[in-house]
């Protein structure tokens, strides 16, 4: 029974529960035990989780009549969950129990997705491998010696390994899409503002966006449909012009897909490009029309991103000062000593690197040369996309330049690590929606294909991804442990 239950997508499980064939408690218990086993295994497991629900007692809404029918949800550590550790992968927030729950989690709980577990992540979402977690690296279920990607690595690995039916992640420069690609699952970053950021422990406010990590596109649409919506607690949130619909498209007739030369050539591994090209041929066979397009400023996106995101982060992370919550250095000599030692002890190397980078970029005399110029690049990139979407409906790129890489292979080289976001950062800067679906293999490891559309094109994006996913028939069951 549990093997069969485990083979169900979240949407299929929801249908079974609604039909009375499976109980929500049974499903919760199955996944809870699997998640708890991974947590208990420590370094021997995948280290996907920073917290797992104790049991059915106190677990959230499992109403089988609710829109999500009680299918349990794993949530990235950085979402505040009342009374449950919410640490954003950082020692400085170790054991922090928020007094409130993030809007996105609250909405999903209200829609019938009880909280199953909190997932491991790079500290403050800064990283592409989950190796920057203060709670140890998560591992890739396809190959335990490799990283799951990041920063939402715990969420991606948990879904891929069948330790959670579906999961919530956040994406600032690729933090949902890249781990989805490396773990062979679906990950979607919706239009900036479509999901409330209230209660998401901030990395870079103008880029952070929540989204689903799921086994398939239909699950992504179902989860996203219950997350979106304007929130009075988030001034930058907005209402999508139409509800997120469950995709049903099987063809891509007449869909014009743009392929930008800048993101599909140099710097992308040959095996990844091969799988990407094969997937595009599949799209053509479904009726899509391919067109080569230009995103002339896209090669500068990473540089702009690594000014803007650290600038915002340097300010967003100023609140971790030891005064009110989280870590406080013991026996400080004075205020400055408390600040410096708390932050020295509490932040990891990558966080410190970005705080310093961002502080420098904003400092008097350098602001225009760095922050100001990066903002202008951001505008140019958005204009590139707007021009491209005059001609094509969607844009396709590989999600990540490589398949999952070995643990420790890039930790000593920050720039090599940053290049993981090469194909995903332009969409983040433009605030447009993008989805990653598994499109094949290279070296026996999953390869992700990214589809991006103009702002508010979630439904078109989901439809196209659904049709392509069906044709590609990627089998992720091998990763389930």
């Amino acid at each position, binding site marked *: 029974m549990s093997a069969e239950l485990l083979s169900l997508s979240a949407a299929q499980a929801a249908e079974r529960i609604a039909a009375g064939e499976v109980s929500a408690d049974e499903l919760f218990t199955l996944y809870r035990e699997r998640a708890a086993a991974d947590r208990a295994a420590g370094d021997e497991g995948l280290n996907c989780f920073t917290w797992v629900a104790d049991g059915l007692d106190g677990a959230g809404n499992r109403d089988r009549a609710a829109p999500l029918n009680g299918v349990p949800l794993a949530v990235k550590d950085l979402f505040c969950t009342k009374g449950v550790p919410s640490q954003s992968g950082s020692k400085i927030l170790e054991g922090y129990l928020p007094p409130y729950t993030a809007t996105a989690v609250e909405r999903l709980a209200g829609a019938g997705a009880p909280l199953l577990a909190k997932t491991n992540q790079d500290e403050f979402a800064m990283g592409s491998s989950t190796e920057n977690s203060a709670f140890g690296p998560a591992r890739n279920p396809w190959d335990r010696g490799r990283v799951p990607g990041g920063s939402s690595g715990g969420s991606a690995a948990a879904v891929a390994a069948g330790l959670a039916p579906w999961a919530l992640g956040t994406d600032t420069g690729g933090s949902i899409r890249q781990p989805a690609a490396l773990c062979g699952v679906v990950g979607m970053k919706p239009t900036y503002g479509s999901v409330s950021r209230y209660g*998401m422990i*901030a990395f870079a*406010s103008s880029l952070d966006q929540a989204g689903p990590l799921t086994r398939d596109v239909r699950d992504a649409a179902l989860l996203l449909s219950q997350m979106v919506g304007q929130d009075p607690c988030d001034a*930058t949130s907005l209402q999508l012009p139409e509800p997120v619909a469950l995709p049903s498209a099987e063809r891509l007739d007449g869909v014009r897909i743009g392929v930008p030369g800048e993101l599909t050539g140099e710097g992308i591994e040959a095996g990844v490009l091969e799988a990407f090209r094969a997937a595009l041929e599949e799209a053509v066979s479904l009726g899509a029309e391919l067109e080569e397009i230009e995103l002339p400023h896209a090669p500068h996106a990473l540089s702009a991103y690594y000014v803007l995101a650290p600038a915002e982060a340097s300010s967003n*992370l*100023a*609140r971790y000062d030891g*005064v009110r919550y989280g870590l406080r250095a013991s026996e400080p000599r004075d205020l400055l000593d408390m600040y410096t030692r708390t932050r020295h002890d509490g932040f990891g190397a990558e966080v410190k690197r970005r705080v310093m980078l961002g502080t420098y970029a904003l400092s008097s005399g350098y602001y225009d040369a760095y922050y100001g110029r990066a903002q202008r690049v951001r505008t140019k990139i958005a204009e590139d996309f707007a021009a491209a979407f005059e001609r094509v409906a969607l844009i396709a790129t590989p999600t990540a330049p490589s398949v999952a890489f070995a643990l420790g292979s890039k930790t000593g080289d920050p720039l090599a690590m940053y290049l993981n976001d090469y194909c995903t950062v332009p969409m983040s800067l433009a605030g447009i929606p993008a989805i990653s679906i598994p499109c094949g293999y290279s070296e026996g490891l999953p390869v992700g294909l990214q589809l991006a559309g103009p702002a508010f094109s979630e439904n078109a994006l989901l439809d196209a991804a659904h049709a392509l996913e069906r044709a590609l028939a990627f089998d992720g069951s091998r990763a389930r442990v």
Partner: protein
Amino acid sequence: MSDGGATTNGASGLEPVIGLEIHIQLATATKMFCSCDLSFGDPPNTHTCPVCLGLPGSLPVANARAVHFGLMIGLALGSELAPRSIFHRKNYFYPDLPKGYQISQYDEPLCRGGRLGEVRIHRVHLEEDAAKLTHVGASGRIHGSDESIVDFNRGGTPLAEIVTEPDLRSAEQAGAWLRLLRTTMRTLGVSDVNMEEGSLRADANISVRPTGSQELGVKTELKNMNSFRFIERGIRAEIARQAKVIEAGGTVEQETLHFDPGSGSITSLRSKEEAHDYRYFPEPDLVPVAIDDAMIAAARADMSELPADRAERFERELSLSAESAQLLAFQGELGDYFEAALAAGADPSPPAQMLANWISGELRGRLGELDDPAESNVSPAALAALVGILAAKQVTVGAARTVLERLIADGGEPAAIVEAEGLAAMDGGEELAAAVAAALAANPDAAQRVREGNAKAIGPIVGHVMRETRGRADGTEVSRLIAEQLAG
């Protein structure tokens, strides 16, 4: 450095140049970026939430009412209202700043320019207040304290910061102008503007320069002046300090200074080298403040008469002198008292100018530290009645002053006091003639000197009459009767 006292002017050839930065806590129901109630004096940390505590994941949402009040202030000051303004983050670490940055406005403020009285306004912007720190231990400052505790009730209170151009030239002028600003804000109803409770706070930028020069000298910023008295004293002391430095051939350093009202001393908080780099950048958690015509119309509709308009009305409708009109209108509580007295329906009714003079002169001069006559024992109706009977010559000026003293001491009604004390003016009949005759008889030497043409000698005789009649006699009539009886 001590409170030197004298203003440096003309004599030394130096002219002070002063600009003010005023923070006004807006009297909204809730805080600037969250829905916590504003409070004063409640138990610490009882009006807090994830947003104003800067908890992880929380986000600000701008208070529409604060924007509305900001627009009213801009309209009152004749500022240009920005169709689009944005919030910035001002980054610095301090325990009273839970996010490590203050949300403020920087190069795109809500209002630019304007004028109040003789002072030009540079800008008006919105921001959030810091929390309240208490340092436990001997020093009372963060350095050397045993521990510091934070009350976040105040944190996030909406503030309007009003920055003037450097148009003020003396401590006294700064104090007077600040009173006008306070009255204007109080009239608008946008703030309690209570300096003791901190809802009105002023910092002064002060420099001195050779009289007649157009260049500005090096300025210092003087902080922590929490009463009108301290502001004038602080500015005076800093002007004197700078003048002394320059006269001794030195140069003034640009620095931020702390005025200690207790000792009157000025100490340096930080030098130019130690100045913060606030790393301002646009607040990504908020959207721009977009102002439309409907919002401006709504702000205008909520504005009551401003002090300058009130002064103009006092002149036009009540024929007050310009000086009286401004004095009453610019110190709103005097204006309110004046209008309440006029409306009291006293019979005989007091002439407006005489009433104005009595409020701004006789009454205010007897109130000591009290700013608002309405808080004294003298009701507006009582003063109106008193000035009414004075104008109708039912009492003399001297008797009226006696009545006013009684009113200030014990309250009550003028008519009753006049009756009880027998202070009614004497008509010029037999009784007064007899009193004059008695006074002449009692002061034969003085009478003789008056006969010989020494007009000043009349004093003791008049004084005698006044004493005997307990001030009820009309001085002019007494003089006339003395002259008549001596001639007779």
